[in-house]
């Protein structure tokens, strides 16, 4: 593919480090949800964040996109303190399956993507036709070419989720942060979805961090694992994780869904 997107996403790294989380503590008016979390995500990593229910995975992701502020510790995005970070278009964030969307009312696929293109940053002047071209490219990438005019409400859950991926890709992010993106979607769609992420990671060196409870679904694509249970009980190479005590504990505690694929 010679698209603009592939060039942009695959640009050589200015810095290898994309996200750094330092000594983060967080609680929602109660006992701590996250304690002393430290890790980094480097360019072109494909990181799976796993752990039992209530282990703080979603909270961690929300801290990484600035939606929650930790009580202690620091988060750096592209080397900048998160408080000073403004280039949010460099980060694609995808929440748990589309339950938060107001999708019963008429909004077309094209409009979903366009709204993200123009929101949150000053628009540079663009050649005419740029917007349409970009929408076509990202829809092509997620296998929904020709769906521009469709209403969101008429799409299946899996298709809606792919539109959200396309929306995130449209702003040329350098990292995608995904929170259980395929909950409630049928099995085949889930596999296709992770294949797509794997392809983006492999072909365009897109950095990806995904929160998931189904380790079996992602394990063929990832190279890093962060295992969370209030504390970070494991973070490192995927191959080593399978030999680790943390992995065996999770399996024994029935906290790891391992569909055989």
């Amino acid at each position, binding site marked *: 593919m010679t698209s603009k997107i592939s060039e942009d996403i695959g640009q050589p790294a200015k810095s290898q480090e994309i996200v750094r989380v330092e000594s983060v503590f967080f609680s929602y008016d109660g006992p701590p949800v996250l304690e002393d979390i430290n890790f980094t995500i480097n360019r072109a990593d494909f990181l799976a964040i796993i752990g039992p229910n209530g282990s703080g995975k979603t909270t961690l992701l929300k801290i990484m996109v600035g*939606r929650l502020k930790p009580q202690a510790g620091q988060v750096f995005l592209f080397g900048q303190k998160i408080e000073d970070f403004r280039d949010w278009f460099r980060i694609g*964030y995808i929440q748990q399956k589309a339950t938060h*969307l107001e*999708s019963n009312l008429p909004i077309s696929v094209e409009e979903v993507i366009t*709204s993200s293109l*123009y929101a*949150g*940053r000053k628009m540079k002047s663009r050649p005419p036709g740029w917007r349409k071209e970009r929408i076509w490219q990202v829809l092509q990438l997620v296998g929904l070419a020709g769906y521009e*005019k469709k209403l969101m409400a008429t799409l299946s859950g899996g298709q809606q989720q792919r539109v959200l991926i396309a929306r995130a890709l449209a702003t040329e992010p350098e990292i995608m942060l995904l929170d259980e993106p395929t909950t409630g979607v049928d099995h085949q769609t889930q596999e296709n979805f992770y294949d797509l992420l794997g392809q983006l990671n492999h072909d365009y060196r897109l950095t990806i961090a995904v929160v998931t409870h189904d380790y079996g679904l992602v394990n063929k694509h990832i190279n890093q694992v962060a295992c969370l249970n209030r504390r970070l009980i494991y973070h490192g190479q995927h191959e080593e994780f399978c030999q680790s005590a943390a992995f065996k504990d999770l399996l024994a505690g029935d906290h790891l869904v391992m569909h055989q694929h």
Partner: protein
Amino acid sequence: MLSTVLASGFFWRAILAGSFLAVACGLLGVFLVWRQEAMITHGLSHVAFAGIALGLVLNFLPLIVSLIVCVLGSLYILKLKQQTKLPGETALAILSSAGMALAIFLVSLRMNFGVELMGYLFGDILAISPVEVWLSVVLALMVTVLILIHYHQLLYMTFDRETALAAGVKADRLDKILVILMAITVVLGLRIVGLLLVSALTVVPAASALQLARSFRQALILSTIFSLISILAGMALAYLVNLPASASIVFLSLIIFLATLGGKRLSPALKK
């Protein structure tokens, strides 16, 4: 008879103010309905009414006083909603009863402006003064321009607030802008269709448009068209058959709404 109507200045003033207001209502209404805030205009109209009463008591341009009171009231509703975590409806109910109580109290201080006040209860577009026309035009234009400027951010946060926030959309600021625009529109609507019907003006055309629209942009365009038809044809109808303009405006918008419901049933293709 028709020629004398067309020759009269007040008729054209009404048309001018009505058209601009129609566009503002049509655009704003779609966001309101989609954000499930349709009742906010109803609540704000009571606050605006208190402002009118205050203006009459102070003997100072009621429309301006009402504008100030209503904008402050709208910001207070927003604050109440955020701070108390009460449902928006409850915050609205509290403020609208406060507004109405204040209006009744102010009216009781001086009973002699009952007739004028009636004009704001039931609307009296044909009595609109030249100053009020220009005020309406300028403010309605401002509402329209601000919505168009923030169109993409508004759309993003209306559809998917959490992700919009993470993408750097300043949703809190936009909430404020939107609620202030509503307050302005309500005050303008008060003059034209009156307190009792002002929420119909923002909500009904938008609800009709959302029945048919196949994109958000289409919803905005249809809503504006429906709103324009209701206001302009409603005023013409009021003249021809001697009805109160406010009632015929709302009747027309309701007829359009019923027609869109019927149209949607007749043509299932439109649903897709």
